[in-house]
């Protein structure tokens, strides 16, 4: 509200008239130059990584780093997959498991909770929500060590569960789901469900969840990314390399580059392959998450 009044004041200020189409051509050009330069900044490193993963070890150092020489991409990928009994593929599968299963469960759990907070009144609701919001401000990395201490008490460190279980809690997902459910699921619809004799749970899974889809996809994607990118938890929890997610695996190879130089190609090819799934997922699902992103910020 205070913002609205401020803006209203601003529009009432004496605003200078624009200087016409000449300025507009100039500013068009300037805008394009700025965006063009930064496009290079954002894309050249990824392009370089792609080019590097198409080269064999000799060409990597001797040929133009930003253009192709002999096409060795598939040979490199084959070598990468074969190295160390295919441990890289194992890491990719692990990452997909941690992030896929974790994000799916997190989304359902957070979606249900956000829905309950938006659509039902109960004692302690705001207190509960405030504690969860506090959780948004406590970052996942701050929890990694306490979780490790606790998990070592119950002998769960160095297991799949050590990384998966903490990943299914998304306070931000609850926050987003609550805001979105409050705005997009009409009370009348839930009431209609009640009159038709559908249970609350059935109403949620058949109707409300569908209305919340954009928010839920956003929660899923961002949780997926945060699990996929999470480094501290695997670093502190895992010792056996067959449990590593791909980021931790590549990190461990990268630390051995000085002793085992041939790992360099594998690190580069492996890095490139590991970012492809996320880029594809973001491109395919963009119409969903773009809608959902705004929900969190406008509030």
């Amino acid at each position: 509200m205070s913002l609205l009044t401020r803006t209203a004041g601003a529009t009432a200020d004496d605003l200078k008239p624009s200087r016409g189409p000449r300025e507009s051509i100039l500013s068009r050009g300037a805008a394009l130059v700025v965006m063009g330069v930064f496009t290079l900044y954002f894309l050249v490193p990824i392009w370089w990584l792609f080019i590097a993963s198409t080269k064999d070890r000799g060409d990597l150092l001797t040929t133009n780093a930003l253009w192709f020489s002999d096409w060795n991409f598939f040979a490199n990928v084959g070598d990468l997959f074969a190295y160390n009994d295919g441990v890289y593929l194992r890491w990719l599968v692990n990452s997909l498991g941690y992030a896929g299963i974790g994000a799916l469960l997190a989304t359902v759990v957070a979606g249900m909770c956000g829905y309950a907070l938006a659509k039902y009144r109960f004692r302690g609701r705001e207190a509960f929500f405030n504690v969860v919001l506090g959780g948004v401000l406590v970052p996942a990395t701050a929890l990694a060590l306490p979780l490790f201490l606790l998990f070592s008490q119950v002998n769960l460190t160095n297991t799949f569960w050590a990384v998966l279980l903490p990943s299914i809690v998304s306070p931000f997902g609850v926050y987003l789901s609550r805001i979105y459910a409050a705005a997009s699921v009409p009370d009348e619809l839930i009431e209609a469900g009640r009159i038709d004799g559908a249970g609350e749970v059935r109403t949620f899974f058949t109707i409300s969840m569908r209305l919340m889809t954009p928010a839920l996809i956003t929660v899923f994607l961002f949780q997926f990314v945060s699990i996929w990118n999470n480094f501290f938890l695997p670093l502190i929890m895992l010792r056996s390399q067959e449990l590593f997610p791909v980021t931790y695996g590549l990190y461990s190879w990268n630390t051995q580059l000085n002793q085992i130089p041939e790992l360099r190609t594998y690190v580069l090819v492996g890095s490139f392959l590991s970012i492809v799934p996320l880029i594809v997922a973001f491109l395919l699902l963009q119409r969903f998450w773009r809608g959902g992103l705004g929900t969190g910020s406008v509030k």
Partner: protein
Amino acid sequence: MTATEALVTRAGRGERPAKPPRRPTPHKGAIAIFAGPFGVLFLLFYLIPIGYAVWQSLLVVQRDGTYGAPEQVFGGLAQYALVFQNAPFWESVGRVLLFGVVQVPIMLGLALLFALLLDSPVLKGKKFFRLAFFAPYAVPGVIAAIMWGFLYSPNLSPFTDVTRTIDFLSPELVLWSIANVVTWVFVGYNMLIIYSALLAIPSEVYEAARLDGAGQVRIAWSIKIPMVAPALVLTAVFSIIGTLQLLAEPQVFRSFSAAVSSTYTPNMTIYATSSIPNTQLAAAFSVVLALATFALSFTFLKITQRKAAQ
């Protein structure tokens, strides 16, 4: 559980249970089913670990004589006294604060500039730029750090002319080289959050300004930026949190630069301390860092809210 189910179905049929003197919460069972799982998980993997860390941080290890078995006993705030005397830890805190003071404004300034350009009528090819700028967000911090580590290196970089004259991995520059990696990953993400907020502004808001002949820059400065202030606050808070938690990028840079010590950031200090192992001290570090993060982002929220209310 059966009682819960009964309640759900009864509530579902729209029958009201007999009214006791105090009005009961309707749909109690449904609420338990919806909010329960998150509540339990939040308790198990958020609240209990925090409590356990606080408890651990209050313990000290004692031995019977030099070779006696170690035993954990209550030590009060002894670990916290050690935390406050630990110079490397405070150096690492100072380092990430310096990092944040420089990197967060640059990153958010760029994100705001790009979002305003995407939102203005002067730019063509918006869809392409939006995707190109967001693409780095799909690169995990570890991978981004490995990639940039190679790009900075004096022999492998495609820009060896530059990297041979400027040592990006030197003790003086490496912090800012890491800042560049973080900026590269997160500008597009923050840009999209601000851009979504810009899209949500109804166009009627601009009408009056346009009729008065305001230029795009004036509209951006006087209308758009104040209206997306909440989004800027949100991105700032998340960036502050992220900065204090810095771990993956500097940890990777240890392979590229000897200047990055094992206690370069607070989280690296925690990791290094826990692998000694000195879990009690590491727990105390964790508690201090979590409190500092919370206090800083909370203060920032409060200050900006007060400003907005003025």
